[in-house]
């Protein structure tokens, strides 16, 4: 594509294509978008985050990441669409405009670049990172079991060959550590949304224990509003609730850690599969998926911006 206007959002793209898209978006929108490299992957690829900011320093922020599980291609594709959407809507949509007047938005489109490249070149079903484990022939750890929140408890595997292998230690995966360092250094992230697919869920902490989070009532109400907004577009049905009550026990997951860091509005999505295709969602569903998800994202970030703490 010559510009981000002619980029095809209705198909899946390789890492190189997405990184080119990122550069184009930054070039076209220098007043709003910048690219930050937060680290390098195990195999040495750069890890980029887009920053959307209308100016100012030391501002609160919202974080969105897509594609921590590499095979969930609709998430990276949605991330690309969200990035473009922010640039086209930030002066037109009063809600987004109001958010960006107060807060910055960070968007990590390809959270697990090594895994993503591997899904394109070698194994479309790859989910984990590509790190090596000493003493095992099996490769990678589940980056959504590698965070320092109930690390290694039930809901993750200690077997390096498992798809839910938690890794050698908390933050052992550089892709996770890069976000941890960024979040800690930034210090003012107020909403953190990690996006997966599929099964149509909006989840809040906890995943590693059955206790209710202290803000359960507010998070539940907000999740309900977000799901209502999402469903309003195409009627896609979502369930919401805590991870452990809604799906299963999952220790060491992203949003349990972000919540433990004081980020109250910590959510994770499982995007749509309305056609029994699982991770193999047809590309024709990318834009509808992104469109409906965007409504829910706006609801959450808008709430965070109006209830800064």
């Amino acid at each position: 594509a010559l510009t981000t206007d002619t980029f095809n959002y209705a198909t899946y793209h390789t890492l190189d294509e997405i990184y080119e898209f990122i550069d184009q978006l930054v070039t076209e929108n220098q007043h709003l978008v910048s690219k930050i490299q937060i680290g390098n992957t195990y195999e040495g690829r750069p890890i980029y985050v887009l920053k959307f900011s209308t100016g100012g320093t030391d501002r609160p922020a919202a974080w969105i990441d897509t594609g921590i599980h590499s095979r969930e291609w609709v998430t990276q594709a949605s991330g690309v669409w969200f990035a473009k959407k922010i640039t086209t809507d930030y002066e037109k949509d009063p809600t987004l405009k109001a958010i960006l007047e107060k807060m910055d938005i960070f968007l990590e489109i390809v959270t697990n670049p090594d895994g993503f490249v591997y899904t394109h070149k070698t194994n479309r079903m790859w989910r984990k990172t590509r790190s090596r484990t000493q003493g095992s022939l099996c490769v990678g750890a589940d980056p959504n079991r590698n965070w320092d929140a109930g690390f290694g408890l039930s809901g993750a595997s200690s077997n390096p060959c498992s798809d839910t292998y938690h890794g050698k230690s908390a933050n052992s995966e550089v892709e996770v550590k890069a976000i941890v360092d960024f979040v800690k250094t930034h210090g003012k992230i107020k909403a953190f949304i990690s996006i997966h697919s599929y099964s149509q869920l909006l989840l809040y902490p906890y995943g590693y224990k059955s206790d209710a989070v202290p803000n359960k009532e507010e998070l539940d109400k907000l999740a309900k509003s977000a799901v209502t907004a999402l469903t309003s577009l195409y009627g896609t049905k979502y369930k919401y609730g805590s991870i452990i009550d809604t799906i299963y026990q999952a220790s060491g997951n992203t949003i349990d850690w972000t919540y433990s860091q004081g980020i109250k509005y910590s959510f994770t999505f499982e995007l749509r599969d309305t056609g029994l295709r699982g991770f193999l969602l047809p590309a024709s569903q990318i834009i509808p998926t992104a469109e409906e998800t965007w409504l829910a994202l706006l609801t959450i970030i808008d709430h965070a911006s109006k209830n800064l703490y």
Partner: protein
Amino acid sequence: TEIFVGHQVLRISAADEAQVQKVKELESLEHLQLDFWRDPVRPGLPIDVRVPFPSVQSVKVFLESHDISYEIMIEDVQSLLDEEQKQMSALRAR
């Protein structure tokens, strides 16, 4: 490149806790090389599992012998991947 010819994705419906446990037993049989897209959690929640071609028969026999109902969610994973690739290649060619 790994190919997935003949791999099927089954959607399993466990009617009660005992059936959920049975599916969990299946999960622990590493030689079957099952890839759970949705894990067995509790009755009523669908369980989706990608079954490599060599394991398809054993898994179906196991489920049927324990009266666990299932449907074939994806008949052949590779054919969907081929479609996906075809579409991406066509786009690049354009």
